[in-house]
C-alpha cells in the first residue's frame, strides 16, 4: 500500500512538469503583451525594455521555463503578479480555502443526496419513486450550473429574500453557491449509482443472501452497495475535478474571493504568473484527488487492495503463470 502510494505520488511529478510546459507555452505564445499592459499608455522604448527585463521576459523561452520550475522546486515560489506585484503563492494560499470549502460542501451534498437517491431508485425499479428520481436526474444533468445559480438568486434571494446573493463570511452566504454547484452532480451521481446498483442487484450472490434470510437492508447495504461502489467512486473523483474547475463560474456569480475570481482577474490583465500558478495548483489538487480515488478503490474492494499491496514475489508468480 505504501509502495503504491509512493509510486503514484512520484507519477505526479512528470504530470505537473507537463502541465507547467503546456500552460507556459500557451501563455508565452498568446497574442497580447503583458509588458505593454503593465506600462499602460505612453512609454518610451527604454522604459519598455527595462520593464521587460524586470519581469524576466527578455530571456529565451527555455531559460524562462527553467527559472520558473527551479524556483518552484527550491522555494515553492510561483513568482510575483505582474499586476499587483504580490507573491502568487501568498494570494493563492489566501484564496484556495474558499474554493476548497465550496467544492467540499458541494460534493458532500452531491454524494449525500445522489447515492441514497440512486439506491432507492434501483431497489424499486419502475416504481413512482424511481421515475421521479430518474426524471429529476435527467433534468438536473442538463442544467448549466451558472444558470441554476442565477435561478436560485431570483427565487431565494430576490423574491423570497431567504439567502444573500453574495458574500462569504456568514454561513447563509454558502447555501446558494454550494447548492448550485452541487445539484447537477447529484444528478450524475444518482444516475451512476442507479445503473451500477442495477447491475449488481441481479447477480446470484444477492439472491443467495436473500435466500439465507439476511434482511433486506443488510443485503442492499453490505452486499449490493459495497459491490457497486467502484464506478460510483470513479464518478465522484471525476466530478470533484470538474467541480473545482467549475468553481470559477460559481465564484464569479456569487462574488466569492476564491481561486476562480483570482484567475478571472488575472486572465483579464494578462497576468501570466497568476494564471500559471492557479492552473498548477488546481491541477496538482486534481492529481491528489485521483490518487485518493485510487486508494478508495482499495478500501472498497479487498481484491484491488491485494493488487496494491502485492509484493514482487506474487507479481513474479503471476508473470510466470
Amino acid at each position, binding site marked *: 500500500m505504501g509502495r503504491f502510494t509512493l509510486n503514484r505520488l512520484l507519477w505526479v511529478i512528470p504530470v505537473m512538469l507537463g502541465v507547467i510546459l503546456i500552460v507556459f507555452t500557451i501563455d508565452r505564445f498568446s497574442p497580447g503583451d503583458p509588458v505593454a499592459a503593465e506600462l499602460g499608455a505612453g512609454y518610451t522604448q527604454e522604459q519598455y525594455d527595462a520593464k521587460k527585463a524586470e519581469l524576466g521576459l527578455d530571456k529565451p523561452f527555455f531559460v524562462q521555463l527553467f527559472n520558473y520550475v527551479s524556483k518552484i522546486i527550491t522555494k515553492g515560489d510561483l513568482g510575483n503578479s505582474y499586476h499587483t506585484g504580490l507573491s502568487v503563492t501568498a494570494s493563492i494560499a489566501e484564496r484556495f480555502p474558499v474554493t476548497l470549502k465550496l467544492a467540499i460542501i458541494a460534493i458532500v451534498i452531491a454524494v449525500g443526496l445522489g447515492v441514497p437517491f440512486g439506491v432507492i431508485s434501483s431497489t424499486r425499479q419502475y416504481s413512482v419513486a424511481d421515475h421521479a428520481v430518474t426524471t429529476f436526474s435527467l*433534468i438536473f444533468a442538463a442544467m448549466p450550473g451558472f444558470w441554476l445559480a442565477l435561478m436560485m438568486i431570483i427565487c431565494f434571494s430576490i423574491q423570497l429574500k431567504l439567502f444573500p446573493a453574495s458574500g462569504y463570511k456568514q454561513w447563509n452566504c454558502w447555501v446558494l453557491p454550494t447548492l448550485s454547484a452541487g445539484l447537477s452532480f447529484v444528478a450524475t451521481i444518482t444516475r451512476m449509482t442507479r445503473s451500477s446498483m442495477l447491475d449488481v442487484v441481479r447477480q446470484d450472490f444477492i439472491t443467495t443472501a436473500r435466500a439465507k434470510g439476511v434482511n433486506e437492508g443488510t443485503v442492499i447495504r453490505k452486499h449490493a452497495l459495497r459491490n457497486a461502489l467502484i464506478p460510483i467512486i470513479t464518478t465522484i473523483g471525476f466530478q470533484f475535478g470538474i467541480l473545482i474547475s467549475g468553481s470559477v463560474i460559481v465564484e464569479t456569480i456569487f462574488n466569492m474571493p476564491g481561486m476562480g475570481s483570482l484567475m478571472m482577474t488575472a486572465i*483579464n490583465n494578462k497576468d501570466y504568473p497568476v494564471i500559471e500558478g492557479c492552473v498548477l495548483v488546481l491541477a496538482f489538487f*486534481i492529481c491528489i484527488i485521483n490518487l485518493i480515488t485510487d486508494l478508495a478503490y482499495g478500501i472498497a474492494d479487498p481484491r484491488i487492495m491485494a493488487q496494491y499491496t502485492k509484493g514482487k514475489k506474487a507479481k513474479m508468480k503471476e508473470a510466470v503463470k
Partner: protein
Amino acid sequence: MNKRVPLPPHPHPHPQEFDLKIEDIRKRSQISDIWKRLRRNKLAMLGMVIVIVLLLSAIFAPLIAPYDYAVQDLANAKAWPSLAHPLGTDDYGRDLLSRIIYGGRVSLLVAILAIVFGLIVGGSIGVSAGYFSGIYDGTIMRLMDVVMAVPGFLLAVCISSALGTGVTNTAIAIGIGCVPGYARLLRAQVLSIRDQEYIEAARATGASNVRIMLLQIVPNILSPVIVDSTLRIGGCILMISSLSFIGLGVQPPIPEWGSILSAGRQFIRSFWPIVVFPGLAIMLTLFGFNLFGDGLRDALDPKLKR
C-alpha cells in the same frame, strides 16, 4: 433405398446478383435493427426530436426568427413577453426569441467545429498510437494523460484567454480539451481490432500503413465514436456558453446563449426573462443530446441493456 432426387432449378439465374442482394439485406437489417431498438426507447426518440428541431431551427434561423437578431428598438427595451415579442426584448430592444434562435446556430456551429477538431487531431493521435504501438504509443499516451490532468474547462479557459475570443478560437479551445478523450477511445478501439485477419490480409496485399489505417481500421471503429460525439456535443455546448458567460468565448454582438445570459445578468432584479429563457434553451439542448446519445449507445450495443 436412397434415390437421387434431381435438384430443383436454381431459383436465381445469376447467383452473383443473388449474393449481392444478401449482402444488401444484411447491411440494411443491421441498421434497421438499431433503428428498431432506438424507436422502442421513448426517451431517446424525444431526444432525437429535440435535436432535429434544434438543427432545423439553426439551419433555417433567418426564415424562422421573427426579427433580425441585431435590430435595436430602444423604445421597446426590456419589454415583457407579448404577442409581438413572445419572449420579450433585451436591454437594447432586440427580440429575445430571435436572438435565442440565432444563438443556437452559433452554439451548434462552435460545438460541431470543436468536435471535428478534437476528432481529427485526437483521432489521428489515437489511431496511430494504437496502430504503431511501442515507444511512440507510450510517449504520446503519457502526454495525453498530462493534458487530461488539467480539467477540460480550465484548459478551455486558458487557451481561450490566450487565443482570444471568436467562433474559431473558441472551437479550437474546446476542441483541444476533446483531444485526449478521443485519442484514448480510438486507441482502445484500434487495439481491439488491429490483429484481426482482414488487417493482416490488407497488409499482405501490400497496402501502406496510412491506407490500412484510413480504409480498414477507421470505418470499423466508427460506431463508438458516433455515440461518444453525440454525448460530447452537449458538454461542448455547455462549455461554450460557460466561456461566453465569463466573458471569453463568443462575444456580443454575436448572439450566443451564454453571452445573452451574461449581458442580461445585471438586470436580474428587474427583468428576469432575459436570464431565464437563454438558460432554458441551453437546458433543452443538453437534455435532447443526452437522451439521444444515451439511447443511441443502448441501441448500438445491446449488451449494455439497462
